[in-house]
């Protein structure tokens, strides 16, 4: 490895390390200003998202006079964009409730190994799930693979209910 490459590597690694450190330091300092458990439930409407990837809409559009492929592509892109905003909403809601649960866990009077482990596992699973959902939306947008959206939306819907249920003990905790 040449000296220039070595120095460039050290500088890039250093820049990434210091950026991460600075970001986390700022986050930790902001925790001190007190962001306790915030758990009021916010209803979300994911059901309408089920219609966004309905292949019948695209087939109907193709049968119309004057149809051009770019019209279909535009519609796909638009619907993918709307669905991504549903996913972002879901992610924000999850992050908010999960944060509240973590706050309650660290403030619990005794050790809660099972709960804290379940929360850690949940964060990893949710991140994997969102990555997969985003990849499937991207594939749909490219027209590579039609998206089986019904299962996905039903799953999101079910999860939303479960996440909302989770807010109950959190809300109780805030009220206590």
């Amino acid at each position, binding site marked *: 490895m040449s000296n220039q490459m070595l120095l460039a590597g050290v500088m890039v690694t250093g820049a990434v390390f210091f950026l*991460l450190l600075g970001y986390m330091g700022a986050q930790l300092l902001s925790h001190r200003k007190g962001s306790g458990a915030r758990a009021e439930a916010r209803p979300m409407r994911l059901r309408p998202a089920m219609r966004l990837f309905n292949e019948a809409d695209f087939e109907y559009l193709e049968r119309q006079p004057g149809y051009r492929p770019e019209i279909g592509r535009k519609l796909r892109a638009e619907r993918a964009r709307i669905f991504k905003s549903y996913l972002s909403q879901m992610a924000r809601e999850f992050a908010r409730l999960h944060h509240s649960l973590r706050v*309650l866990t660290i403030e619990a009077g005794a050790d*809660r190994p099972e709960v804290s482990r379940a929360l850690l596992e949940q964060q990893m*699973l949710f991140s994997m799930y969102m990555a997969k959902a985003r990849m499937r939306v991207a594939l749909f947008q490219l027209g590579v693979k039609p998206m089986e959206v019904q299962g996905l939306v039903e799953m999101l819907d079910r999860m939303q209910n479960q996440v909302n249920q*989770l807010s109950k003990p959190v809300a109780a*905790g805030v009220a206590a």
Partner: protein
Amino acid sequence: MTSVQIGSILSLVLCATVLWRLVRNGLYIRYPYFCAFLVLSVIRLILFQLPFNRHQYAIVWLTTEALVWIFYVLILLELYTLVLSRYKGIQSLSRWIFHGSMALALAVAAISLYPRFGSGGPNDFLMVFMIAERGILSALAVMTLLMTAFLTWFPVPLPRNVILHSILFAFYFFSKAAALLVRNMLGHEGAKAVTNLGILAVGAVCMVLWAWLLTPAGEVVEARVGHRWNEDEEEKLLDQLKSINSSLSRSAQG
């Protein structure tokens, strides 16, 4: 007088200043290993001003540097004990994360050392010592970063001093490890002089920040009224978490 000698004297003054401020502010009780590290640093910087020959200097440097490594580890232990003992709710998880971070940091450090030791390796004891030092510093930097990430994710409210102390140490460990890497790889005298000066400069910056930022007011952490869980509530919460996790697991795999 060379620039490195000037830097050493400046470091000595700065170390003594930080130590004096910690004692004056009463913070030496909170950070005993850090204070002991500063005492050791002051002693070794005074020793370095004495007219040793090359052999004597090497013995003093190697012995005190090995002691400094031990203090680095003790300071990190002190720091995370201070942080994690406050929060009983995540005691087991934080212990597990601490050991996991340590194992991961050691693995990263070992991988970073392989190109040097794996290729026939250095035969000079001093070179081996300095490569080992780079490994230890890399491991400590990675570990501090991982622990900071854990504390950020589990929104632990920490005293400002602990946050700054942790960030400054991570900065110091990484900068020193990077300087040693550059020195090990480039090898020539010019690189040695520049990296020695760089290490002194980073140390001086950290000392100024420690002296300036570690204050008694920085030990205060906002108290929050926690929610005491009863057994039923915990069981219900666990069931809900497990149910969501199993749904997520099915969806992520399906």
